[in-house]
């Protein structure tokens, strides 16, 4: 009897899980279908391309001397929303094989036009990309929940909270507000939300939080000292600079933010591992703790810096490819075009490396102190 009961409860548990996945899958599907047909929500006219004829329009010389093919497209589309719904419009489009500034359109694409509600407009503004965005986002959430379960859910929640904090802080920072001050506050909120969300309220969470903030303060100090003692960084080479008038403040904020995740990662890993050791062997000495902390630190350090390297390096690929094809030499790019990015990467890596001893120290002190207290009360 017991076995049968066990089997039944197991089956119910499993089917509950299956049902849950089913429900989420259904929500996902509905969301995707909704976004595919949400043209009525838009003020901008949207057209679905029904006919696309592509022809070769000629060749020109590319930067490396090879032939660059030019294409011409005749496009016909149907308007999906607004007062002109159902109207058929024709456009023409030109693009090159490189597709740097202009792009190819496919049959079945939905595109935003450059007109207003009543006026269709004369050309295509951009492709409607929200469907793909939702598909990917949903897929990420689904995969996280299926494979990582409850932890995955927590991850989604913390990411959501972080994005909300980011948006809130961002909207609050007016044009003349102190960006660095707001960013400092934001970083503390981020750290609290992420660490508590992922690890719960626990002593190791506080240890990790404290070490994260210490390390951040340290790297900002190092950055300021180095900047004031060396040649001024030329902020004008930063990407997306446009006409922003306080680049140095934004750069400070960028450093704070982009290093935060990695530093928290290191701090959490060390805090969790050390607290495991302390709870299992309360008599462990500081030296032993330090040694095992270092051992863990070695393992993380290299890979964490690698993660940042790839995130940072790959963002530079398109611009580098363009510049190098316009006879700017690679060394010139490093010297003149990306010193800011390079500097940011170095500072973040320093933060990761510093996080190891700092969090070992803070965690072991905190763990040891509390254990002594417990002993005294006993």
């Amino acid at each position: 009897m017991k076995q049968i009961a066990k089997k039944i409860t197991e089956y119910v548990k499993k089917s509950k899980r299956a049902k849950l996945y089913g429900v989420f899958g259904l929500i996902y599907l509905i969301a995707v279908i909704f976004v595919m047909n949400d043209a009525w929500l838009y003020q901008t006219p949207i057209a679905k391309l029904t006919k696309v004829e592509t022809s070769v329009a000629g060749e020109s010389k590319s930067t490396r001397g090879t032939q660059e093919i030019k294409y011409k497209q005749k496009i016909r589309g149907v308007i999906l929303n607004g007062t002109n719904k159902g109207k058929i419009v024709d456009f023409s489009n030109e693009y090159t094989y490189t597709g740097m500034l202009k792009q190819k359109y496919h049959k079945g694409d939905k595109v935003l036009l450059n007109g207003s509600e009543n006026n269709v407009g004369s050309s295509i503004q951009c492709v409607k990309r929200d469907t793909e965005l939702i598909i990917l986002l949903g897929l990420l959430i689904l995969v996280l929940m299926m494979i990582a379960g409850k932890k995955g859910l927590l991850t989604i929640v913390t990411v959501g909270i972080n994005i909300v904090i980011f948006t809130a802080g961002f909207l609050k920072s007016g044009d003349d507000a102190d960006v660095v001050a707001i960013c400092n506050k934001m970083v503390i909120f981020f750290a609290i939300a992420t660490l508590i969300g992922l690890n719960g309220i626990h002593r190791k969470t506080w240890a990790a939080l404290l070490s994260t903030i210490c390390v951040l303060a340290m790297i900002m100090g190092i950055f300021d000292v180095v900047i004031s003692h060396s040649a001024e960084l030329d902020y004008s080479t930063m990407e997306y600079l446009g006409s922003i008038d306080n680049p140095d403040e934004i750069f400070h904020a960028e450093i704070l933010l982009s290093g935060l995740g990695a530093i928290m990662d290191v701090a959490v890993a060390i805090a969790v591992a050390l607290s495991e050791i302390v709870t299992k062997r309360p008599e462990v000495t500081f030296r032993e703790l330090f040694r095992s902390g270092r051992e863990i630190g070695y393992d993380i350090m290299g890979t964490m810096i690698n993660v940042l390297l790839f995130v940072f390096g790959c963002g530079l690929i398109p611009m580098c490819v363009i510049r190098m094809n316009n006879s700017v030499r690679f060394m010139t790019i490093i010297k003149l075009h990306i010193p800011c990015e390079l500097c940011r990467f170095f500072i973040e890596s320093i933060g990761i490396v510093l996080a190891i001893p700092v969090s070992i120290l803070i965690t072991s002190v905190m763990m040891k102190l509390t254990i002594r207290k417990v002993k005294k009360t006993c």
Partner: protein
Amino acid sequence: MILGLILLFLIMIIGGDRGVISLIALVGNMLLLSLAIWLMAAGAPVLLVTIGMGIIISCVTLFYQNGTNEKTKSAFAAVLITMTVLFFFIYIVVWRSETGGLNEIQAAEDDVLYYNMNLDINMRNVATAVIILSTLGAVLDMALTVTTSVYEVSIHKPEMKLTELVESGMRIGREVIGTTVNTLLFAYLGESLLLFSYLKMQDYTLETLLNSKILFQNCVSMIFGAIACVVVMPVAAVLVGRHLPGYNH
């Protein structure tokens, strides 16, 4: 440049011998990345360069930094399988949404006007390359974490079954995934902070922003990075379980 030197010293002081090894691997990866950029700029087929460089970078990171053994071999296989599957997926997404090339803001920058844009290099492929290579670091990290922990568990408890081993690997992976996803999130947020403040100054409506190339380019790398990290977990756990001695059924 001074910061680079500080970093160098810190890694050597704190990391010791193994710090030096990871430093060499890091510099190697930097050089490989530069080589990849150089090859792409010279007109080599972009996707082939990406795949080749991806494999070489994985080899350097796993085998040089962590030694050649069952752990790194199965991590390598797991990364290879995951990235191959995702490769097609990424390419389809990039093709459907046509997110290659410069985004709206980059295209409006001053110095772009002086450059000749007929490169005879398909920017759609370059965009795919960017996404794949930028996720690679995190995926390698994740795969190695899972395989290492499964390996440790199997040494301490040799009587465990394959399914139990896989389950324990997944458990460790779950512990790590939260911070990894957040690391990626913050790295991209920090990178695009300036972009956001730029957007605020320009009058972008929500509609145009949601469908813009800028947002898509920034989000897609992050989302794919996270997806790849999650997917590689079970793959790595199963592979290392099968590779370990005593589990070769």
